[in-house]
């Protein structure tokens, strides 16, 4: 049985592996943001009806006109969307074309939201049942996609855009040209 002596150290080795895994999970917590797997792929085809007064609806064809654009997924009932509104206005002032998909919203609420927080959008499509949101692989509001001039998604920003996120988004837009 002496040749089995090494077996007695096996539990300690197995325990070491478990501790290593656990320590990794503790000190290098994985990025738990659920990102879209659609980055690098063409926008799915969609056509969404207008929702904001005097503003056209949105379709995937609008993103194939040669110029990179931002696609902002937002909703009037979403609090972080209010927080990111100033940054979107900054981007608009920098000449960035921004379109939006409004999730589960009503014309009245959208009107109030834009009146209160500013209106950076060229077009807004209404996605009442989140169908386009799901097709984009978006897991919440707000999210922002950078789409190049051929309709390919080149980047995704999950959560509200903070002031220090703006340069990165401008760079992604410049790279997409």
């Amino acid at each position: 049985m002496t040749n089995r002596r090494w077996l007695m150290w096996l539990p300690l080795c197995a325990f070491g592996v478990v501790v290593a895994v656990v320590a990794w999970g503790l000190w290098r917590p994985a990025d738990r943001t659920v990102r879209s797997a659609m980055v690098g792929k063409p926008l799915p085809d969609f056509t969404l009806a207008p929702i904001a007064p005097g503003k056209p609806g949105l379709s995937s064809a609008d993103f194939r006109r040669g110029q990179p654009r931002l696609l902002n997924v937002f909703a009037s009932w979403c609090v972080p969307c209010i927080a990111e509104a100033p940054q979107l206005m900054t981007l608009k002032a920098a000449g960035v074309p921004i379109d939006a998909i409004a999730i589960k919203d009503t014309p009245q609420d959208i009107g109030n939201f834009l009146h209160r927080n500013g209106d950076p959008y060229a077009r807004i499509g209404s996605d009442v049942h989140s169908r386009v949101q799901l097709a984009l692989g978006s897991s919440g509001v707000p999210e922002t996609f950078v789409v190049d001039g051929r309709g390919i998604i080149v980047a995704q920003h999950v959560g509200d855009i903070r002031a220090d996120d703006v340069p990165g988004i401008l760079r992604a837009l410049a790279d997409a040209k």
Partner: protein
Amino acid sequence: MTAETGLAALWLAAALAALQVFLATLVLRRSVAGGATAVRAVAIVQGALAAAAMVALIAVFLASDMSVALVAANSHSMKPWLYKFAGAWGNHEGSMLLWVTILGLAGAAVARFEQRLAERTLVATLAAQAAIALGFYAFLLFASNPFARLQPAPADGAGLNPLLQDPGLAFHPPTLYAGYVGLSVAFSFAVGTLVTRDVGPAFARAMRPWVLGAWVFLTLGITAGSYWAYYELGWGGWWFWDPVENASLMPWLAATALLHSVTVLATRDGLRAWTVMLAVVAFSMSMIGTFLVRSGILTSVHAFAVDPTRGTFILALLVLYIGGALALFGARVGTVRQGKLFEPFSREGSLVANNLLLTVILGIVLIGTFYPIVAGAFGTQLSVGPPFFDKAAGPIALILVAVMAAGPLMRWRRDDAGEVLGRLFAPIGAALFAGAGAFVLGGPIGVLPLAGIALAAGLAVASVAPLTKRNLARAPLHLWGMVIAHLGVAVALAGMAASTAWTQEALLAVGVGDPARVAGFTVRLEGVRPVVGQNWTALEGRLSVTRGDAAPYVLRPQVRYFTQPVTTTNESAIATHVDGQFYAVLGALGDDGRWQLRLWWKPFVTLIWAGGALIAIGGALSLVGHQYRLFRQGRRRAEGDA
């Protein structure tokens, strides 16, 4: 003042734990006259002080003393008193204090009552127990002081998560912790026995009641937790393979294996090294479980703020205790005399198979639970959930059930295959009959549920077989315990298989007065009205439910709105029938004026928890039976001496 008294008691207890480790080491190094008695006395006082600290914490919660930070963060003066009471451990700091309290009390009980073990082994055991306690005292005092004051005191507290405001859940943590602590005692015995190289039947008999007790509490905890998820989460599921559930299942699997290998060691003096290792593994699983829940590494950042300090502290304790014990195991167990070898076809053989299969299932659950972290370390985000666990662990669990049916019908030492097959005639017949019946009458239900139903029938018949041809009044209590526990597994398995196979679901939008039908039930929503509770308001549906020609009864599912903190919960309404449960949930009101309604008929689902209760009762009977026998043996010996 109460808070300061509690803190003082905690510091004193910690000091005594340190003294206990020091004294015990001294006694082990060189024999000190009366040393063992001193160690015992210190252990008892330490346990009493920890309990005093816990009582102090409960007192400040009951008094809603908002100047204590923990009370302000987790309680509210308007809360019902039961939840103020349970609120004492419904949070991180309080639950850790509860843990050391039970740990201290268990140590005191070992010190007071354990008479069979060699004195040196007992002293080493108490040293290990105090070392564990010392780590947790340090954790409490330095990283999570439950008695910290808040300046200035807020006007009122923040409240307790409404989902946790439930009488069953209030007693869920103490139950689980009692189980975990029982395993810590088993761990301490294992360390003690490794220190003195005294592995044998005496050690197994000393450890057995703690393992059995721990196992009973873990069984109760898992059963109750499962029922809570079933009625509280509102979708009729009773097991989700969620990391927190796995954290409670893994110690149970290890304890189940340990409990059977302890029997082999106590009866036949075999599986020595294996039993010692299992005792260490079982406690390590309960520490890993605590770590999983407390550190939040496997749950969403959105649910709990991950606190690396706490996680690091528990991880450090884990490495220290378990790593230390396993290193001791590696170094020492080779010098422990080899236990007896067995014939493969014997009761021992079946128990080895039981241990093998339980350990494999434990490994699968462990790997499946942690695999997302491993994959994440390599940059892949993935999920491991019910489909994996069902596919990987399901078939092995069913093989285990077959072993369970055959094992108790085999003789110790050596048995004959033909004879065992003869004894299994009735169980195999029952399994074939039930399987065929389910196949013919039950429609397409899938392989696992079908096998589950057949095996449950076979196991039910096999598990009562050891009592046949016996005088029932004279059958020993621990035999009754085994029979009832095994029967409980059959009952629970039948419930799982039947409810998985034949649940019927209706998800509807109904107007007031419209009839809805599911599985022979007719349901009418008669109205929805607002109701007010102590700290919530709700919309309550009034459902009139008729089954066949029976008289109708009323179910009142609610959508509850809590204000402290703001939360909505769906309170399901459940009617229990002899053959299952009718489960109703009220949803939202649509803009067409119709209400969402979720209805389920879950045949025999109650058997799952009834089985869990039977398993626990069986364990308790077995515990009492073994202790009673030892007590009688002791008395007979005393009489013989006299």
